[in-house]
């Protein structure tokens, strides 16, 4: 079988699995899997640019995804004028003081001659600056968080259409990636890994802790949508008529309509991302990236600026992850910092890219859909398996009860096994790099 034929078959197979879910569960569940599958595919495409094109080991995807989510809140939620009046300018001042202190420290570090005086001066500037920053910052935060804490207690956003948040989420992630890349990319791959892992945890800690910015663990809900609300559809006579023609009741029809609306938007974004990535991969730039990945020394001897290219590709991949994160938050309509778990948002994306085929955009996309489908479906399948295996045991038997309760954790085990088997027997993935 020719390679393109095989790939089309693989995609058809995965889409067939999702369609089948529509029949044996419900169309709503299937569309839910499809929508998150689309987002996962975009995240996997972002990681593929970093790992597949350039061999950068990024395990901080969760952080970039969360930054995208934060951007959605900051762009699309209505502002809280009382909170702005209470401490907005002061927070802005504190943040600029903080930035100025860091800039001064960097300036001193770069300009002073190396030696103990330099270290002492830089440390003194940082420490003094920190106390100054906190002196300005703390009262402002207290004032903001005091404004109507049960419903707001934060500054709110800019009240712009939520679609605007998607590119901005990408840019926020790109900015963070630039900062990380500047410090960590020169180091060896293990260090980049631990640096990105750390940054991701820090970003989540900021989201949880800085209530004036993100409401912290109180979550932001009711984030505006790019598609209509079910309740409005159900009230519209035109929609009810349209639903009855299709033979659906208005409630089901409205929920399907909303999900399909998201699907259309997400497909458009995914196609754009893939088109651009493919164009980049097949351009001289893409060939240069692969040359650098395969032999850094030779590429740099040919006059390629390896560290600048690494920084570039790190920023691009992270921006795509930020974009996907913003899309996910607007799909959920909720920013819940406690929901960001590294196994789900960093390492699962890795499984997607490894299984799908690193270095191949279509492979990453396929992996995104397939692994997301399995992530959702392994749990009920695991429960089914447990029920079959323990059919001989009486209800209430401790082993049966324990296994039934633990079936939910089968998914981690399964993902690990899939990844290990793939790495062993088909290390180039389902759709290998050309």
């Amino acid at each position: 079988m020719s390679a393109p034929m095989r790939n089309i078959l693989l995609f058809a197979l995965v889409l067939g699995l999702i369609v089948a879910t529509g029949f044996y569960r419900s169309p709503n569940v299937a569309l839910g899997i499809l929508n998150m599958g689309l987002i996962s595919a975009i995240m996997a495409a972002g990681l593929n640019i970093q790992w597949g094109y350039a061999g950068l080991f990024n395990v901080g995807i969760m952080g970039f995804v969360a930054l995208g989510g934060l951007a959605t809140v900051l762009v699309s939620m209505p502002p809280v004028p009382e909170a702005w009046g209470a401490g907005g300018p002061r927070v802005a001042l504190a943040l600029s003081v903080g930035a100025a202190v860091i800039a001064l420290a960097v300036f001193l570090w770069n300009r002073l001659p190396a030696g103990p005086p330099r270290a002492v001066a830089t440390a003194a500037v940082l420490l003094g600056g920190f106390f100054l920053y906190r002196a300005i910052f703390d009262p402002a935060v207290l004032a903001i968080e005091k404004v109507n804490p049960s419903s707001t207690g934060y500054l709110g956003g800019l009240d712009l259409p939520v679609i605007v948040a998607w590119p901005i989420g990408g840019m926020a992630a790109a900015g963070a990636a630039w900062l990380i890349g500047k410090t960590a990319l020169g180091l060896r791959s293990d260090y980049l890994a631990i640096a990105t892992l750390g940054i991701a945890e820090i970003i989540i800690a900021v989201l949880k802790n800085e209530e004036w910015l993100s409401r912290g663990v109180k979550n932001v809900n009711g984030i505006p949508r790019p598609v209509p609300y079910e309740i409005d559809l159900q009230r519209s006579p035109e929609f009810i008529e349209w639903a009855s023609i299709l033979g659906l009741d208005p409630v089901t029809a409205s929920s399907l309509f909303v999900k399909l609306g998201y699907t259309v938007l997400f497909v458009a974004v995914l196609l754009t991302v893939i088109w651009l990535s493919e164009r980049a991969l097949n351009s001289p730039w893409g060939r240069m990236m692969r040359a650098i990945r395969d032999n850094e020394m030779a590429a740099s001897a040919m006059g390629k600026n390896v560290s600048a290219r690494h920084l570039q590709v790190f920023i691009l991949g992270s921006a795509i992850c930020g974009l996907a994160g913003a899309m996910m938050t607007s799909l959920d309509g909720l920013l819940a910092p406690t929901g960001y778990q590294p196994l789900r948002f960093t390492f699962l994306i890795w499984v997607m890219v490894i299984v799908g085929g690193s270095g191949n955009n279509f492979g990453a996309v396929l992996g995104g859909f397939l692994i997301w489908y399995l992530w959702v479906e392994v749990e009920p399948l695991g429960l089914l398996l447990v029920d079959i295996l323990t059919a001989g045991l009486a209800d209430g038997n401790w082993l049966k009860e324990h296994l039934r309760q633990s079936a939910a954790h089968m998914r981690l085990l399964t993902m690990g096994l899939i990844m290990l088997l793939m790495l062993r027997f088909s290390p180039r993935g389902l759709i290998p790099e050309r």
Partner: protein
Amino acid sequence: MSVMDLLNALTAFANFVLIPATAYGAQLALGALGVTLVYGVLRFSNVAHGDTMAFGTMVTILLTWALQESGVTLGSLPTALLALPAGIVVTAALVLGTDRLVYRFYRARRVRPVVFVIVSVGVMFVMNGLVRFIIGPGDQRFADGERFIVSAREFRDWSGLREGLALKTSQAITVVTAILVVVLLFWFLKRTRMGKSMRAYSDNEDLALLSGIDPNRVVAVTWIILAALATVAGVLYGLDKSFKPFTYFQLLLPIFASAIVGGLGSPPGAIAGGFLIAFSEVTVTYAWKKVLVYLLPDPLEPTALVQLLSTDYKFAVSFLILTAVLLIRPTGIFAGRAE
């Protein structure tokens, strides 16, 4: 400021910073020793380390419960110490099995280190799933015996100070065990034939093979030591705080920070790094008001908590130290083998 104030300040400092940070530092040091050993001998960063710790601790907890059920305890010491050796044996069997089924294949092909790291991500998923499958994702407590060697109240009654000083049994056991393990490990690495082979293999694989060192034995012994270090570190952490699979996964960050700060591949570096990270985390996230009210004259006494960063940011501390050390001295404090 009187002598009493100074003593109170010192007691508060010891109670809230010195003792907890020492115990935590010993736990991190043991974890970092495992990471650094695998890096030195097997040449990759083992992402599954946190979950290996969780697995070893889980086995020990299950055995501890079984012992407690049958009425076997260690009196004032925690029963977990009795179950620990068996926990190590089971964990060693698991990591040796993993090596046989997973890592050996890639070692034979001499793949790049980053492939090993990715493979260890898969192993991490499996171990994480296994632990959650067997014991569940929730919090487990398994400490028994005397909770305190010295309780805060006893200390206050004895000394007449306003501040209390508590020394938990788990903290004392942590430090004593850590010292024993480290002494044993260094003796093994420096004095025994096997330890010398391991160091030779770590320094130069080809040369070691030429001198007739059996690589399979070196690798197997490394995994067994790793299982022991991970299980001991995990059980001590669990006794001191509590056991929760996700917390152990998250320990990966401070443990790696410790190993890298100390210099990957250098055992003394791992110990130094562990204490450096632990002390920084605790000092930066401790509310210093309690100590400062005794030290400063009344008009200067702080009204706020004087907490540099909220405890949620403890990861940020590991990370900032890591960045600072890497920028100033990229090979770590004790120049590791990472170039």
